[in-house]
């Protein structure tokens, strides 16, 4: 009997405090774990970038994983940054906990798939030639919806929380997260649907990445829908930063400043979208 009891004891700890209780720190921890995964993949991909001679669309095959790891980390970092604007009951709520988990999980999936495809010497977006790749691309679409749904829900929850402190920061966070998420969904949706264009991201110009802008990769010879996607997504950082600045410098006019900023950013997205649609590059290099 003693031997049996000894066999059954597995030294496995009981689930930790964050898992069981509605700890207000849980959602934040989930996102931090998510960022940790991105950083691990980022380090590996960066070294692979230096060693791997394979190309996709005429650029290093590890460029894309690196860009995604950086931007997904930034997305989660933004959520962590804005989360203190929530009340404690919202922080404990199921909706915020599940939003954070969905975002971290979806980001892990996107990165895992993009890294896998790069390791296999293949692209990831628009690659649907084999059934597993078609499923992978479709799953990335589902994942990206989860990513923006999470940030949208955070914006909504900050709005519901209310509060008077830091009005500009708060308003910037609410508008940035909601508008940024919706516009990202719209621009990325159009980008991925292939309804407007067959090649996905490019209109006219050279259809490769080698002639693109440094780092961003946007076409310098033709229209590129990724520009509008970029500006949509970074509204999530721009408006809270604008609000913080307004809190400091123009505390009496924060609503005006953030409101104008919100309208302006929507205008920038619309303008870059139309620019790409007419086949014009954002910057001719």
């Amino acid at each position: 009997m003693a031997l049996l009891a000894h066999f059954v004891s597995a030294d496995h700890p009981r689930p930790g405090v964050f898992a069981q209780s509605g700890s207000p720190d849980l959602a934040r921890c989930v996102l931090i774990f998510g960022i940790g995964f991105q950083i691990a993949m980022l380090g590996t991909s960066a070294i692979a970038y230096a060693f791997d001679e394979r190309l996709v669309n005429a650029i290093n095959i590890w460029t894309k994983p690196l860009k995604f790891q950086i931007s997904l980390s930034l997305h989660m970092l933004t959520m962590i940054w804005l989360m203190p604007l929530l009340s404690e009951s919202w922080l404990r709520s199921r909706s915020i906990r599940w939003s954070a988990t969905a975002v971290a999980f979806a980001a892990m999936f996107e990165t895992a798939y993009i890294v896998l495809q790069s390791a296999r010497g293949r692209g990831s977006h628009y690659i649907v030639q084999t059934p597993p790749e078609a499923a992978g691309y479709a799953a990335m679409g589902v994942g990206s919806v989860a990513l923006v749904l999470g940030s949208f829900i955070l914006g909504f929850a900050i709005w519901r929380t209310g509060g008077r402190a830091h009005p500009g920061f708060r308003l910037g966070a609410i508008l940035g997260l909601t508008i940024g998420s919706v516009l990202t969904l719209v621009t990325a949706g159009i980008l991925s649907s292939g309804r407007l264009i067959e090649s996905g991201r490019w209109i006219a110009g050279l259809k490769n990445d080698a002639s693109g802008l440094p780092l961003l990769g946007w076409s310098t010879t033709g229209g590129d829908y990724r520009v509008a996607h970029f500006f949509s997504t970074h509204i999530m950082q721009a408006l809270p930063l604008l609000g913080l600045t307004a809190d400091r410098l123009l505390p009496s006019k924060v609503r005006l400043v953030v409101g104008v900023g919100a309208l302006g950013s929507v205008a920038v997205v619309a303008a870059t979208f139309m620019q790409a649609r007419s086949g014009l590059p954002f910057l001719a290099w």
Partner: protein
Amino acid sequence: MDFHFLFLLCNQIVLVSWLVLIALPRWPLVIATMRNGIILLLSLLYAVLMFVYFFRVEGGGFGSLEAVRALFSSDPVLLGGWVHYLAFDLFVGLWVAARADEIGMSRFLQGPILLLTFMFGPAGLLAFEIMRRSRQVFPPPPEGI
């Protein structure tokens, strides 16, 4: 001895173990079966294979890639090497699961990490260790916003 059969058998057992570890609740009996049963049986198989076949390999050893390649030219030693992976990767998987449960990491986040450990052992361990430590890198949220 039929090494091909042993290879398939070990693979199947380990595959089921990983699926259980990834998807099912962490029942103590199940964990104990893996930790004290499956892993130790694999270790025993490995040890026996090494006792019997390791030193038969001409030019085999750990000192150079050529010596290791020579080892893997022998089916039983190759099987032993594979069983070594299976046993140690599963052990690391159980360790990751235990540490992850300890700090309350969501099972949804554990899933991909364990899958990565299953397929590419050290890559999963690397990812988990950085995830685990990233919590200390981020300061706690400021009070009173």
